């Protein structure tokens, strides 16, 4: 009892049990619902799944607290704050290579399992009511639990093979959930698009995984992230024009996986379409969990990426591009969920940007030496933003679900004037919007400040500008969203009928069903508070793994703030909000932008804050013509169209092949003979052609 070693052992074994449970409970929920409950007892399925996910959350919290007391508070035992709860050999490749299934605990994974299980629990709970009248609700809960299981497995994996395994499983579960309404052609198309595009990116990822494994002799993050692995990979292949650094190639390939999964430009086209799935799915998968898997992977491999010469620049660049582009497109959308989807894209871009700016512009020597990580503010900021964003973005999606549930439409133009009817939704959405816009003291403010601070601290001024621009645009489109949904008057029959009398309410049940609003209220709390509460913990402990522990003090010092930056960011956010209010804050909604009259508040805003004038001019004239319209056009005409075109080309090729295959024996014989003669000729002439697919060594 008094023996501390014994106590520790007990705590360890309880931690291990909880770690097992974190994975097994969602799987159990999937099996129970998928095989048994889901088919006959759909209501029971929802409650069972929710209860099991609640237990998962409890276990995740237990793991977190256990990790905190056992690992975090014993830096002498665990200098890198990392431990393995358990690990089993899954498959032996022979030699030292083996695939293992483990439960890897470090600050990032502990944070993520808590966030994922919490959001998943709330989404399950919310779905009980949301899916009440849907057919196949049992299947829905089974798949939701399967997804949660896959996501948790992905988070806690300590090696690339397990990561890849769950990475694909997450993709498959997401495919099944997006296509949940499989009788709806749009949903089927969207799910296919999501799956094929992410699989396309995964092809690169797989190459990266194999390259890493073959060259470093291990798939474990602890080895791969170490200096030895980076040194092993740091050699030049090829010559002349085709010379390339193996380390850079490997890390870029690995990043490609994240690129697709986190829907960075131009792979982003699948995410807005994925909104065809049920709204709870969007809340769970396409805001808080799966799409941040790419960010998470990048963070997981951060030391390796940091050792490569240009990879982090690429990360930052794609992040910045996506952040600005998606924010601009979000200004033009009229579908509630698509606005949120583009907003998610933009925020994911910010997270990537934060990871990418973690290395000072000049300090990275490149060449042979492996850079030691001195300043990881960006890493911390990215994961901090993952943390805060998860809460307010899932809140936004869930509240959008309540709205859609009430007005039976996804269209912004069908909403309006819902403030009175939906007070709870109104308040929680307001909190989430302000958090997303990054206003003090809401959660988003703190993480955005960290991101901008990291970029500025390392001298990436372009990326600071991109971050600021994104912040302004975000505040603008969220204001537009908010005002158009809740203020003004009802614009169409659907919402006006609901506003006019309670007959509609009698038909459709309450406009704000308690079971759906409860998660909103629960999520409002962290959306407001986590930024302020979590900041110090993140700054102190959320550090990338290194073979030797970095001194936290030095790390904290790197965070010496830039007070003016806070002011600028807040001013931009406020001006975005102001512009949004100025343009849309009318009783009557018009399709155009300009209308001179408005409530006195907006007039004051317009008269006093001339920055709004400039801003609205920028949006209306310059922005609309040179940023938003082209971005929107590129989105529709180039990216989506090229995806469709690819299918057409394949189809033509297939037709040609089937015409060739006419079923006559002599054609088969002739083809075979031709092939054989070509083969013989190639080899006897010593031609290099057969080596086209030769090895790259």
């Amino acid at each position: 009892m008094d023996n501390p070693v014994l106590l520790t052992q007990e705590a360890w074994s309880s931690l291990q049990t909880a770690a097992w449970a974190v994975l097994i409970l969602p799987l159990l929920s999937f099996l129970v619902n998928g095989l048994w409950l889901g088919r006959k007892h759909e209501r029971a399925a929802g409650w069972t799944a929710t209860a099991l996910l609640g237990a998962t959350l409890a276990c995740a919290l237990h793991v977190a607290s256990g990790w905190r007391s056992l690992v975090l508070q014993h830096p002498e035992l665990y200098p890198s704050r990392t431990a393995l709860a358990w690990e089993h050999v899954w498959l032996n490749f022979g030699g030292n290579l083996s695939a293992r299934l483990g439960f890897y605990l470090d600050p990032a994974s502990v944070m993520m399992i808590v966030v994922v299980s919490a959001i998943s629990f709330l989404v399950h709970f919310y779905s009980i009511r949301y899916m009440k009248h849907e057919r196949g609700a049992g299947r829905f809960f089974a798949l939701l639990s399967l997804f949660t299981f896959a996501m948790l497995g992905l988070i806690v994996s300590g090696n690339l093979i397990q990561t890849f395994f769950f990475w694909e499983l997450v993709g498959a579960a997401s495919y099944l959930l997006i296509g949940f309404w499989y009788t709806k052609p749009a949903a089927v198309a969207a799910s296919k698009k999501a799956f094929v595009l992410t699989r396309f990116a995964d092809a690169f990822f797989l190459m990266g995984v194999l390259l890493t494994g073959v060259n470093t002799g291990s798939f474990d993050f602890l080895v791969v992230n170490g200096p030895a692995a980076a040194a092993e990979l740091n050699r030049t292949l090829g010559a002349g024009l085709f010379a390339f650094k193996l380390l850079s190639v490997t890390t870029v390939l690995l990043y490609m996986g994240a690129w697709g999964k986190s829907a960075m430009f131009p792979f982003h086209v699948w995410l807005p379409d994925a909104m065809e799935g049920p709204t709870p799915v969007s809340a769970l998968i396409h805001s808080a969990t799966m799409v941040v898997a790419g960010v998470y992977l990048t963070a997981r491999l951060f030391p390796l990426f940091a050792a490569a010469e240009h990879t982090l620049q690429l990360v930052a660049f794609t992040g910045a591009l996506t952040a600005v582009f998606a924010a601009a497109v979000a200004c033009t959308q009229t579908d509630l969920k698509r606005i949120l989807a583009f907003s998610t894209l933009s925020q994911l871009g910010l997270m990537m940007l934060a990871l990418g700016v973690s290395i000072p512009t000049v300090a990275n020597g490149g060449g042979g030496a492996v850079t030691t990580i001195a300043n990881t503010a960006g890493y911390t900021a990215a994961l901090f933003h993952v943390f805060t964003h998860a809460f307010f973005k899932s809140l936004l999606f869930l509240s959008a679900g309540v709205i859609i549930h009430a007005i039976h439409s996804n269209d912004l133009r069908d909403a309006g004037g819902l403030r009175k009817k939906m007070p709870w939704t109104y308040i929680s959405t307001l909190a989430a919007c302000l958090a997303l816009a990054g206003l003090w003291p809401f959660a988003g403010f703190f993480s955005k400040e960290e991101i901008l601070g990291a970029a500025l601290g390392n001298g990436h001024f372009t990326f600071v500008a991109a971050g600021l621009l994104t912040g302004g645009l975000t505040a603008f489109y969220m204001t537009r969203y908010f005002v158009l949904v809740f203020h003004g008057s009802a614009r169409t029959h659907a919402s006006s009928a609901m506003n006019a009398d309670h007959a509609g309410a009698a038909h459709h049940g309450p406009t704000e069903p308690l079971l759906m609003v409860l998660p909103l209220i629960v999520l409002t709390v962290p959306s407001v508070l986590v930024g302020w509460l979590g900041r110090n913990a993140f700054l102190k402990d959320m550090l990338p793994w290194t073979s030797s522990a970095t001194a936290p003090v030095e790390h904290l010092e790197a965070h010496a703030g830039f007070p003016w930056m806070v002011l600028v960011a807040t001013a931009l956010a406020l001006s975005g909000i102001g512009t949004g209010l100025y343009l849309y804050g009318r009783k009557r909604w018009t399709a155009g932008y300009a209308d001179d009259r408005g409530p006195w508040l907006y007039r004051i805003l317009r008269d006093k804050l001339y920055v709004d004038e400039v801003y609205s001019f920028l949006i209306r004239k310059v922005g609309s013509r040179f940023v938003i319209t082209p971005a929107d056009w590129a989105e529709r005409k180039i990216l989506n169209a090229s995806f469709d075109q690819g299918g057409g080309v394949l189809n033509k090729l297939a037709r040609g092949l089937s015409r060739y295959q006419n079923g006559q024996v002599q054609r088969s014989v002739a083809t075979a003979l031709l092939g054989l003669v070509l083969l013989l000729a190639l080899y006897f002439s010593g031609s290099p052609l057969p080596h086209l697919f030769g090895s790259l060594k």
Partner: protein
Amino acid sequence: MIGLNLANALTLSLVLVLIGAFGMLRRRSLILVLLSIEIMLNGANLALISFNFFLWGTSETGHYLYMLSIGVAAVEAAVGLAMVIVIFRNTRDVTRDRVSLLGETKAEAEA
């Protein structure tokens, strides 16, 4: 003057194989296609015994394989002729057109 040496024997066997392959491509009658296959097999067999005779005269392994392959060719011919007989019974015709019905175009027409 053409002497009997390895090069000439191999050339002859190659010619036989090519004649057989050409017959497979050109003949319409299934029986002649089967005959062409026999010619190909004989070409291959000729190569086998030539190698044994000219290069590796001390052993007889090549001859063994040759004997066995005659048996295999006989079995193939038997199976082939059996099929030709069935086709003839079904359609009163043993041209190659009778075995060109399955194919993509037809599959598409079905769909």
